[in-house]
């Protein structure tokens, strides 16, 4: 199995306050921690599991800054074989169609059986890049995959639908699968493994190196414009219960009991 796995370096905003920069179209990421996108982490693990079961070779592809190399090295420590990092700020990152085009350029022309990627990026959440990438590559795809069975020349993918229902589909290879979280349990990348992975090839390329006309994946080529980012007004009608933790607990208990809710 010759595989590619596309991963993204994303900020963790689960606990941090998000502030929009004065430019109005970016957020202040100085206080965020960054890591591999959650779903992509599962995609990396799935590629390595397939490699371990079927033999094969996995190439990591990512678009990102130099500081994301640590994420790529971790993927290689887990078993991915080589990596390509596209570093080029001319890519219109707000448009998954442009991102897919740039990723496709790093894969096109090479043989592969599977391309795996996370089904959603936790920052912008389009859930579009993987499926767009399949079209760019002219291959089959299935999105939101919760189980992968590699068959002879085919792959059986269990897609997770709403309500916990699974839709099982069979695709002829090659194919792109967008991986849903929870499909496996991602392993740990030990530091000695990361150090050994330093020997694996990590190619840093620009759009020019990939033979991509920067204008074809830039803001001008994108057919959507990110006009403004803003912090939504919290439409909360919630009654915030105040006090020390225990006071809050007591007040809540009274509300629940007096309101006949319990």
């Amino acid at each position, binding site marked *: 199995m010759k595989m590619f796995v596309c991963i993204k370096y994303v900020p963790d905003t689960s606990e941090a*306050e998000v502030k929009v920069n004065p430019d109005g179209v970016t957020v202040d990421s100085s206080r965020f921690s960054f890591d591999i996108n959650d779903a992509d982490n599962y995609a990396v693990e799935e590629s390595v599991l397939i490699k371990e079961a079927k033999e094969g070779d996995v190439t990591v592809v990512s678009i990102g800054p130099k500081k994301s190399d640590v994420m790529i090295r971790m993927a290689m420590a887990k078993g991915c074989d080589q990596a390509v990092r596209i570093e080029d700020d001319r890519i219109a990152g707000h448009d998954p169609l442009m991102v897919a085009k740039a990723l496709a350029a790093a894969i096109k022309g090479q043989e592969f059986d599977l391309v795996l990627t996370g089904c959603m990026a936790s920052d912008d959440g389009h859930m579009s890049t993987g499926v767009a990438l399949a079209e760019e590559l002219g291959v089959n795809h299935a999105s939101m995959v919760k189980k992968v069975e590699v068959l002879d020349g085919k792959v059986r993918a269990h897609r997770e639908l709403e309500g916990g229902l699974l839709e099982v589909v*069979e695709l002829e290879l090659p194919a792109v699968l967008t991986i849903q979280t929870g499909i496996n349990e991602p392993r740990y990348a030990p530091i000695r493994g990361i150090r050994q992975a330093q020997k694996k090839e990590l190619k840093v390329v620009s759009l020019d190196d990939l033979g991509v006309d920067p204008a074809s994946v830039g803001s001008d080529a994108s*057919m959507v414009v990110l006009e403004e980012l803003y912090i939504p007004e919290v439409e909360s*009608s919630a009654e915030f219960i105040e006090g020390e933790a225990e006071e809050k*607990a007591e007040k809540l208990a009274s509300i629940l009991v007096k309101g006949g809710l*319990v």
Partner: protein
Amino acid sequence: MGNILVLAEHRQGALRDISYEMMALAPKLAEDMGCEVTVLLVGSKMDDLAKKMAAYGSKVLVVDDPLFENFNAEKYQKVLSALIDDLKPAVVMTGQTAQGVDFIPALAVEKNLPLVAEAISLEYANGTLKATRQLYSGKVNATVAFKPADTYLVTIREGVVEPPDAAADGAVEKVDSPLKDDLTYRSFVEYIEAEVGDVDITQSDTLVAVGRGLKEDKNLSIIEELAQAIRADIAGSRAATDAGWIPHDRQVGTSGKSVKPKLYIAMGISGAFQHVAGMKGAKTVVAINKDPEAPIFTVADYAIVDDMFKVVPKLIEKLKELKG
């Protein structure tokens, strides 16, 4: 200007909520754009569903063919591709659902059309279509404008609007399937129902739901104690089920169950919209979370900003006391 083509979603013989919800958004947008809404249904034996969609007053086009007995992204893409050529719609709108996300981005690439995924609202003014969508799990809103194009593709987040009341009946018109032969490279195999455990949380009156904030397995015991005290069933967010703390059949959210309890207590759940979508039917929502910015508070009726583990023991004690 072409029409707004709303691709209605159905599965296993039933229309999905998003289909109705789009009928709340599309007519308003059509009015602003000066065009009409056309509903598209692709499937097999669609008569009943077509009638239901027609009840919203718009024309319903039906591609009714055994080829479409089950959803198949590749087939849908081919149908939409052909119909876009034929009908030249101004907008193609569908849900940001497991169906929508499985083919709309590919369609956008194939037809070289602009796409905004998961809009929560749409606005047309001065000749420009703009969409609002969210980033960073709902902490930031983005206004995205479409550059002028023949057709705009947009997917709508589930649950952002209430379905409208039915209006006058619209016409139902069958169109031949643009796809004549079955595909060999992608095939539907089967549906597998989620495993059913001992508790059906969709039927529960009271739910205590835990999320990532539970942190680890052993912390479940105090939650169980609370649940017992108020005769609640325990549910979880995706984080909680992924971690194995809560069985998968008790996951609340777009990829889990939609629940409608009288009381929903969300603990250590940030309230990602995928989760909120599954519990928006709850009558009263209590949220306990350390992060004052957690989006769960926007849907809560009662909110406590604190460590759940500091609150719950006292809560149990007081509940027991008050209830005798």
